[in-house]
């Protein structure tokens, strides 16, 4: 790692890939910083991290990080990550995803990865819109919000991802926004250390598409609105459902322990073969 750097997180980035493609005011930069800060606080070895992502703005993040990174097909990142983690359980596998990628096309993979409680850390950047394709509504778009595919406002009911994933069996699930950095960093740290499926949803701003269509043109307007709409879980638990409409409930939705999927495979291997599963066996000529 370089000693001198204008940004303390720059050593973790592929400098030959900069500048990045993210729009001005996008929440992705804040979340990358929060992730790296959480990683440092968790005392993780960055060299041991492998990143996996699907398709969408948030899924471009691993491509900018100086680590092994697998930029896969739309919605399928968790299935690739599952194979990678089982193939080499020594790796710390982190998945970056968005609301369209994780909750729409990848919804089935999301609940099954949570059910398996496989030791992956998912950072799901929820900006309530398809940004890469130009502003279509997503499964998390708030009721009434405008997108190019909902020019009169969507009537659909949005998914509550952190709650959904907790219900599906994840051992750690939390939601924060890009304006609650300390909480977000704390959850990322916990998620990375949790030996099981960990999901951190980050409500984020997309001023370019969500903001422009929904009278929140500036990043500041989006951040202020997000902050105003935030309700802590402990408070939300005492509120009526009607009063929570349009609110962003932040906090932890799962924080428990149960056996992790890869551990179970290791135990089975130990019982049947007398040792852990083989690492890098494709390179062995005497297998």
């Amino acid at each position: 790692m370089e000693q001198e750097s204008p940004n303390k997180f720059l050593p973790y980035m592929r400098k030959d890939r900069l500048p990045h493609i993210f729009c001005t005011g996008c929440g992705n930069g804040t979340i990358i910083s929060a992730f790296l800060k959480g990683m440092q606080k968790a005392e993780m070895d960055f060299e041991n991290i492998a990143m996996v992502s699907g398709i969408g703005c948030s899924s471009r993040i691993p491509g900018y990080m100086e680590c092994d990174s697998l930029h896969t097909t739309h919605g399928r990142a968790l299935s690739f990550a599952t194979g990678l983690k089982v193939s080499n359980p020594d790796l710390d596998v982190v998945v970056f995803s968005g609301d369209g990628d994780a909750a729409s096309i990848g919804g089935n993979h999301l609940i099954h990865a949570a059910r398996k409680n496989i030791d992956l850390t998912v950072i799901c950047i929820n900006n309530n819109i398809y940004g890469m394709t130009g502003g279509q509504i997503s499964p998390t778009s708030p009721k009434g919000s405008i997108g190019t595919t909902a020019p009169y406002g969507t009537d659909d009911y949005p998914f509550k991802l952190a709650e959904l994933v907790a219900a599906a069996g994840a051992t750690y699930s939390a939601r924060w926004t890009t304006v609650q950095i300390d909480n977000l960093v704390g959850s990322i740290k916990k998620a990375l250390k949790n030996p099981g499926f960990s999901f951190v949803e980050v409500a984020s701003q997309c001023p370019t598409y969500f903001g422009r269509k929904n009278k929140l043109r500036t990043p500041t307007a989006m951040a202020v609105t997000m902050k105003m709409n935030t309700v802590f879980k402990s408070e939300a638990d005492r509120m009526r459902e009607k009063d929570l409409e349009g609110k962003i409930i932040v906090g932890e939705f799962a924080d428990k322990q149960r056996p992790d999927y890869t551990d179970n495979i290791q135990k089975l291997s130990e019982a049947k073969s007398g040792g852990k599963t083989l690492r890098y066996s494709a390179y062995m000529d005497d297998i």
Partner: protein
Amino acid sequence: MTEELFIQGNEACAKGALKAGCRLFAGYPITPSTEVAETLAKELPKVGGSFIQMEDEIASAGAIIGSSWGGTKSMTATSGPGFSLMQENIGYAFITETPIVIVDVQRGSPSTGQPTMAAQGDIMQARWGSHGDYEPIVLSPSSVQEYFDFTVRAFNLAEKYRTPVFVMSDEVVGHMREKVIIRDDLEIIPRVKPESSENYLPFRNVKNGTNPMPAFGQGFDIHVTGLTHDERGYPDTDDPKTHETLVKRICDKILNNKDDICDIVAEDTENADIVVISYGAPVRSMITAVKNAQAEGKKVGYIKINTPWPFPDEQIYELTKSASDVIVIEMNLGQLYYEIDRVVKCHANTHLIDKIGGLLPTPNEILAKIEDVGGN
């Protein structure tokens, strides 16, 4: 030690995978392929391998690609409906040059079709199922022994050319029981790790087309993407040259090595008036029919195609030169037939035995066609 077993086709496939070094299987239950998964669920934990039952076939294909980048030879097995679901990630495996093996135990189709009956309706899906230009390697076994041997070869070819390989069997070969000899001196090709991460380019435009492949966690810090990428693996989607260079290299590394990859068996074709051509399960009836026709004094030979893709066009052309008629047998309404017709129509008439419904064409049906076509 050489083993001699009497086992089912799908079991032989699983044993071939284990022999070839496969240490991860991810799959989803589907008839008539499920015994491959069941056998590996039992056997993989005994050899330090992993078995994963995924939520669907899309995820199964994703998991084996992820696993392959983790440094493990990986496989899935399915049938037509699952193979259709896998096509998206198959395209990903081609553009990222990821060695994987996919077994498709074909059944009556389209759609849910005939789950317990044999067919060869996926042979064009194996060729063109995913979007875009790519060159698949496809092996088509006609016996339980070949199902074992071709599965081993599929892993070897996948590693040698850093590419997905398909084993296209069918319900007949999948479920029949036959003797299998497992030799202990089989050639197994391990993956090649790059010598050093210094100046290493995972997608270099090398002359032979195939680069060594590191695994995640070995310190290479590589980026792998389904987007059109440069030699470093970085997305470069606007430069026509980058795209052309990448896609042509991926195709050429297969096409330029057809001599190594293509495998066909020809019998009595030199002076034949009629050449019968087939692949997979119908080969069994074809050989009997040709022998019977020869006993009647007809000048008939046959070609058995073990690798439908890349299509062995030069060999087919040469081996049918003396023939006036070529009969193609397929358990579909004509798929590889058109490829064969393209090659031989300048010198021979082509005829098709297109048997669908799930049953193998019988030797008598084929013999009747040979007699119908003529030949002296």
